[in-house]
């Protein structure tokens, strides 16, 4: 009997190798957060309060990186597989549907951890960031959990955007959302109106979780007071995942009945 574990392992291995070899994906999703962190986090870490900057941006560029690999790794690949026949070939095979989706989720998690590991090494060695083992562990957990809502969003986007414009559309969502959630610079530097809107972005909630895990004071971040319960942020992210997944499933069924 073909064991479920074997299928699952093979599916994930192939998906990971495929994205790792696609330089347009691996260079961009790993390269951009690393480059930004070097330019803005490490270069600015040597003055007064520099360690705080490096610590803050370690948390937020980790979020920036994981959102990128989750959105691109899932929506761009799936949008093209769905519309150009490959997904149909896999659906016609006895492949279990969950193996296909879990492989994409685990692949995004693997890339997210790679990005986190690189940023963490840079922050510790060049940025003078000091973290306890527990803090690193909590940050890594937040990375793994944080991939889920953005992988769900990637799945939803894959259902609605045509494959040849997938990269462009994802960037139009990814980049403004990152900016408006304070991933590039603290929210307190943005106009008050935009600060008030920040809690509508999933990146805002994950950024706060990651900042708390990294031991970065939230007063540096700005944003709304009184919403600092980690649990509440996770509940928000979980609800976001459920809603996007449900929408993706509805659209997938509707498309399948139409083609």
């Amino acid at each position, binding site marked *: *009997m*073909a064991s479920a574990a*074997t*299928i699952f392992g*093979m*599916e994930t*291995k*192939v998906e990971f*190798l*495929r*994205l790792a*070899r*696609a330089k347009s994906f691996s260079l961009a999703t790993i390269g951009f957060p690393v480059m930004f962190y070097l330019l803005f986090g490490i270069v600015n870490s040597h003055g007064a309060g520099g360690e705080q900057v490096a610590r803050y941006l370690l948390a937020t560029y980790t979020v920036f990186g994981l959102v990128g690999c989750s959105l691109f790794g899932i929506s761009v*690949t799936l949008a*093209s*597989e769905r519309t*150009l*026949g*490959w997904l*149909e*070939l896999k*659906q*016609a*095979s*006895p*492949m*279990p549907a969950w193996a296909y989706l879990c492989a994409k989720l685990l692949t995004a998690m693997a890339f997210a951890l790679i990005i986190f590991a690189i940023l963490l090494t840079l922050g510790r060695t060049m940025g003078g960031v000091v973290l306890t083992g527990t803090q690193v562990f909590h940050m890594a957990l937040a990375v793994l959990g944080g991939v889920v809502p953005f992988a769900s969003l990637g799945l939803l986007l894959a259902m609605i955007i045509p494959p040849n414009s997938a990269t462009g559309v994802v960037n139009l969502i990814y980049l403004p959302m990152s900016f408006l959630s304070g991933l590039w610079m603290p929210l307190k530097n943005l106009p008050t109106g935009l600060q008030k809107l920040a809690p509508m972005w999933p990146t805002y909630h994950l950024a706060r979780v990651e900042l708390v895990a990294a031991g970065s004071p939230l007063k540096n971040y700005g944003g709304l007071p009184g919403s600092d319960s980690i649990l509440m942020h996770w509940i928000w992210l979980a609800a976001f995942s459920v809603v996007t997944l449900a929408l993706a499933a509805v659209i997938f069924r509707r498309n*399948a*009945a*139409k*083609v």
Partner: protein
Amino acid sequence: MQDVAAELAGVTQRYGQHVALRDVSLTLRRGEVVALLGPNGAGKTTAVKLLLGLLQPTTGVAKVFGASPKIAQTRMRMGAMLQVSKVPDTVKAREYIDLFRSYYPKPMSYEEIVQRAGLKGIENKLLGSLSGGQRQRVLFGLAMCGDPDLIFLDEPTLGMDIEARHAVWAEVRRMRDAGKTVLLTTHYLEEADSLADRIVVIRTGEIVAEGTPREIKGNVAGRKIKCMTRLSVAELKRWPTVTEAAMHDAVTVVTTLAAEDVLRRMLAEDAGLSGLEVSSPALEDAFLALTAEKEVL
């Protein structure tokens, strides 16, 4: 019934206002190669997708080995080569074959797949670096991974060179000899003619003809005589048994139900007759006649 591999029974498939298939019944018996022929948009791919369980019929039933094609047990016995306009570029043929083999409880051995699909030498190349025909061979290999009892080949030899095409044909014949059932859709009439035990012609969602290649060709009566002659077309048309006569680029083409009699008389009346050819109707003629628009018929 024991010898039925797959069937569509009274299937109608609608997409909104558009009717893709209209009350189609089709049976594939075990151990036969059936070719589904028809112009683009006739409903061939819809029929294949219904049998693969990728679509749910609006009305009617699709069954494979007596069960729903959607359940895992049925899928384990099927293999499919569909038209994929883009395969993931950065994966090696070997990796996909190993992956697809992992789906099945008793897969065909890796070496056998490589040999049968003609993948030697390209196993370790990324799919993005392969030619269109080579990619088709990889897809053919993937369809064989489960050593299936029923295999669907949707335009299998598209983009292949002649050598590769003949290799696929040999493989299809081997499958039939091993008791497997093959459903083939193709634009290459020669392919259907040389491979199929049975041809099903489909037009605008309806089956318009069904039979052996010989029976289908029988739908176009008579044989064609081509030659250069001084006999006029108008005169030839008046001869008994001649159903059609025409001249293109100085070559006269006569269609007749009794080629020998007409030929004897032509040779007798025109000693200078040259460039003679006599041909049986090709499947293509039958196909064109069957799939022509109703107004033309």
